[in-house]
């Protein structure tokens, strides 16, 4: 248990959580049929990246630059979410569905 505790509060713990979140995010993106589901996965991925930055900022550099980048990630995520949802709504109006497979106008 102590081993687990010390791991969890070390850099590796953070990295592990980050990696897991990343993997789950990728999985989510790849398996959801729903465009909103894909968005959920992307949010997870972005959070994972933020965790890594913050972790390195604390455990290795001791500077706040990592946190700044994490902040930027958040801001970009917010912007991305807004645009993505707007696109989804638009797409829904167009196709009456938000199935990602239907979004294939580019094919031909």
């Amino acid at each position, binding site marked *: 248990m102590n081993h687990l505790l010390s791991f969890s509060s070390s850099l590796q713990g953070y990295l592990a959580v980050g990696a897991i979140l990343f993997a789950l995010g990728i999985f989510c993106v790849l398996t959801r049929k729903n465009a909103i589901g*894909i968005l959920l996965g992307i949010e997870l991925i972005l959070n994972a990246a933020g965790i890594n930055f913050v972790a390195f900022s604390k455990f290795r550099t001791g500077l706040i630059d990592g946190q700044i980048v994490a902040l930027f990630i958040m801001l970009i995520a917010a912007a991305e979410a807004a645009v993505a949802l707007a696109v989804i709504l638009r797409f829904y109006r167009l196709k009456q569905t938000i199935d990602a497979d239907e979004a294939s106008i580019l*094919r031909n």
Partner: protein
Amino acid sequence: MAQQALLIALFPLIAFVIQSLIGKKLPRHGDFISVLAILGSLVVATPIFMKLITEGHVFDSFQVTWMSLRGAEAGRLNSAVTIVIGVLINNLTAIMLLMVTLCAFLIHLFSVGYMHGEERYHLFFAYISLFSAAMLGLVLSDNLLTFFICWELMGLCSYLLIGFYYKKPSAINASIKAFMTTRVGDTLFFMGIAGLYYIYGTSNFMSIYKAIELGTGHGVTILGYPALAFIGFMVLMGTIGKSAQFPLHVWLPDAMEGPTPVSALIHAATMVAAGVFLLIRMFPLLEAAHVVLPVVAYVGAITAFLAALIAIVQVDIKKVLAYSTISQLGYMVMGVGVGAFSAGFMHLITHACFKACLFLCSGSVIHSVHTQDMREMGGLKSKMPITFATMFIATLAISGVPGFSGFVSKDRILGGALAYSMEHQGHYLIPFLGFATAGITAFYMFRMIYMTFFGHARDEHKHHHAHEQPFTMTIPLMVLAALSFAIVFAGPTGIESIDHVMPVKWFDHALEGVQVEMGIAEHLSPEAEAVHHKAHGLALIISLAVAGLGIFLSSITYLKHLLSAEKFKRMAGPLYNLVWNKYFFDEFYLGIFIKKGLLNFNQMLATFDDKVVDRIFVDGWRDIAMVTKNVIGKFDDLVVDRLMVDGTADVMSGGGWVLRQFQTGKVQQYLVLTVMVIIVALFFANLGLK
């Protein structure tokens, strides 16, 4: 004293400000303000003059710094950059001040009656107040810069007053002509001032006198000429412009378009005399420059003669007086040129008095008969006794009849001229023209008197309405006429016996004091003294003779009609034509120089600017750009675009068709591919890690 003297110029200036701003709303349109202001000036100027009379000499001055410029420079003689201005009171100034204020006051007074009821009455007084201020400022100036400023302001007033009847095209033409002609001289005069600053770093009269005495500035050249000569000529140009000397005399006769008091004040008594005053102020410099004085003398002599000739044929009473003024100014300039500058100055003063009187009398006549044409007058002697008497006295004075002021001063100029020609062999033309002019002057002046006052009335209607003027107009006439007697000036007449009878000689004493100040006190050798004595004696006789001849001829022609003027006119033929048309100066200047030359040149240049510089050189670039654009555009279209760009596109589209087969349109498939690639990349990246 010098500070108080500033008041003399300040009073009229204040009057000008009041008049121009609120004059229209004041009772009587504010004429009393201007009159009181100039009266104030007269009151301040009189003690200065009295001091001169009682003590024989006045001198005072004060200076203030006007501009002090900071800077540093190399390569010039004087790096002084402080412009100091001030007031100089000396004997010349004292006399001029009294003369100017007195004349101006009298003429103001006259104007109250003469201009009564005119449109823009208040502005008239504003203008002549400004003029008085400028003229008095000019007299008071101790340096050429303020002198020049006042000089220009007088020009402005002259312009405004000549064009006072601004609805009359002839008046505004005359005004612009006067301004521009004098400005030609002014501009060059300013170059002279610049030259003075260049060599001396100052334009203060006293400093200039001192510098000339010390001989600084010799050897310096301007434009390759000796600096002093350059400056001297430039100053002379100023005089030529302002005092209407040949060849810039053309503006003065036209200036008679202005109201008559203006002609009296500006174009007879004061402003035009300022040019001569300038020559007198700058006399040491002219003398030191050597080459200038003879030119001055010739200019004066030629002007005097040519103008007098024109005066003979004029029929407009004011024009006669105008040409007479030019002629008399020529005398003065000639006097200065031959070295008799005290005589010149004296003639300036005496001429101011009697010419002002003449002009005012003519104004009185014009006001009475409402015409200027002498051919429509005649027989006014009984109708206007005071006018006639005063005008006759003034005519005697200008004609050089002994006992009157004109005789004294003119005789001394002629004497000086004769002495000059005796001393400098070859310059006989100067005294000759002088004497001839004296005769002609007497002739045309009496012609004018006869045509105006004697004989029978040529226009009954106008004659019937003629009447004597009120006191405000006649009193100035009488005062000015009184000043036309020789006794006022009491200078040496050249006749020893008379000189002894009237020993006052204040004028000569005053002028001697001035000469001392200027550092040019004459110390004649005994031989020279003898020559002068001889010349003056000779001149006296000749001038009396020619004047008498002139009066005689005039009397038999115009009073007794024993000779017919018409016959002479026909006899003279082309000569008459030449003189009647004023030697075609106006035609030359206006017709050829300005209309044909300047305006066409302007038009040409403007067209050049618009059509060539702008359209070709500047807009031409646009055309070049257009052509280039077309050529490059073609090249771009055919070669670059069709062949190279579209060709690339064809290649690409072929390749694209191949690659397109991979494109399913399913986002997640792309993502799978992407992630695969990333994993592979990460895998290889990890290989590098331990």
